[in-house]
């Protein structure tokens, strides 16, 4: 891992600050710390930043700052320990029963496990929020147990429902909108994790930790109704 990040232009209006090339909590912590330090520095011309697993993308207004001048400013940033703040812990209700677990049996068969075991493994792990992306409110998670490592489908399957819990390629994901996908659907959360009327629209933050709490189909239906009326449904733990 390089001691200092690489600064890589992405056109004349964006810059990638790259800390490494792997999915690694320590790398993601560096991304978060840099992002927080950058927000505190309030460098003119920065439009917004996008933290990912391993890099921070900075979108800027080229009328206010040019690429080389921005890199010079970034090199001066002082990033102290703890700059990224303390991650929050969340409990998120999920249902692994039909009709929410469309691919659970298929995954169990492919991995040589029972469906109950797959659900127990998925619900038993602690996950880390690495980034949001692809579509509004899609939550990319690390921490999937190695026993659940399954490759992506060769061809995408029809759209998964809102709140679907997906796995593939050693990663886990919560899909906030129906989309076709090459990932496998193990269950669903009744929580509506993205709400444009909330500020910020997603309560979870990058670096936060997540545990899933299994609920039955009746509880899912009740919680989905409450979520539709604006209840958070997810709980923050101490």
């Amino acid at each position: 891992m390089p001691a200092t990040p690489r600064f890589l232009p992405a056109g004349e209006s964006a810059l990638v600050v790259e800390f490494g090339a792997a999915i690694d909590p320590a790398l993601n912590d560096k991304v978060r710390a840099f992002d927080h330090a950058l927000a505190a520095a309030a460098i003119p011309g920065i439009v917004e930043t996008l933290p990912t697993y391993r890099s921070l993308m900075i979108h800027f207004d080229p009328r206010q700052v040019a690429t080389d001048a921005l890199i010079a400013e970034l090199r001066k940033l002082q990033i102290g320990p703890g700059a990224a703040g303390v991650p929050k812990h969340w409990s998120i209700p999920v249902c692994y029963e039909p009709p929410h677990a469309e691919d659970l049996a298929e995954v169990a068969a492919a991995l040589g496990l029972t469906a109950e075991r797959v659900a127990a493994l998925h619900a038993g792990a602690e996950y880390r929020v690495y980034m949001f992306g692809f579509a509004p409110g899609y939550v990319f998670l690390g921490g999937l147990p190695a026993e659940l490592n399954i490759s992506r489908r060769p061809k995408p399957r029809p759209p998964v429902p809102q709140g679907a819990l997906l796995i593939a390629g050693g990663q886990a994901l919560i899909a906030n909108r129906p989309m076709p996908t090459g990932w496998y659907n193990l269950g669903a959360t009744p929580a509506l994790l993205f709400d444009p009327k909330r500020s910020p629209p997603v309560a979870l933050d990058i670096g936060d930790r997540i545990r899933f709490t299994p609920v039955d189909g009746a509880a899912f239906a009740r919680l989905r109704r409450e979520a539709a009326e604006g209840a958070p449904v997810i709980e923050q733990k101490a």
Partner: protein
Amino acid sequence: MEAPHLSVLSAGPGATVQDGGRFGFRRYGVTPAGPMDWAAFRTANLALGNAPDAAALEIGPGGIELVNASPGPIGVAFCGGGFSWFRDGQLAGAAARLVLTPGAHLAARPGVAGIFTYLAVVGGLRTPVELGSRATYTRGGLYGGMLQGGDFLPLAEDAGTPGDEAMIVAPWLRPDLDAPLRVVVGPQDDYFDAAALDLFFSAPFKVTAGDRMAYRLDGPAIAHSRGYNIVSDGVALGAIQIAGDKKPLVLMADHPPTGGYPKLGHIARADIGRLAQLRPGRTCHFAQVSAETARVALLALEDAVVTTQSFCRPLRRVVALAGLPPSDRSPWSAVGNHRLR
């Protein structure tokens, strides 16, 4: 209905409400959206004295038909993409500022070149704001969808005061579609060896398909020297992804904020609208420039577009454009070798 509004009689696929874009939410998976051809979009607004990024219509190859269903006049401006616009059945040209009297009918049909045209209204459209913007992000399922017949577009109270009718003769609305598209290499240019980069910058590529999310290009295979799986990172407008099939995929206004294929470079913002207007079947080629050169080119085009009012010529009569029959054919299925000029 007393408030000024436009009624959509019919709209083909691709007609959406856009503004300058939705910023600050990429970290939550929300792309900015915004116009595919920002220079044409801003020109339509500036011809009316609007803010450059006021909400306006982006109209795709399916065209649109609208009517002023308000009790008073509505000032509009349209331009971009070489479309043919008609007022009450009379050809009104490709770029103009008009006053629509109550009951007036306005239609856009694809012309001989281009994919997107824009219609701005005095004061801007007053469709709902979500996350600070009126831009439609169709693929994300947010902020409305594509327009269709029966839709109703609320306008500002002062929508009837546009000034004189005029033709818009701004030179940037008639770009040289054969000029190379400027590209800033990176951030994953180190996934390609010198021979692959040389090939990319010397060979012609043909646009084969596209939508607001991405344009596919076909040409010689651009081989990766270190594979094509990278851990997802951020994506900017104009990113040139080289996917597993070794063909370029250029990410456009509705691209996801993150992506997983190596990005050879980015199309300069100054040239992104020119690419957006290339129909399938058209060829393009690329020229490498520095980020600073791309920045200077962008600011120069922005500065030129701001002078739109000085390119508005009083409209005395509608000039028939001989030999330009309106076409109902979708450019996405057309393969030809048309020239804009």
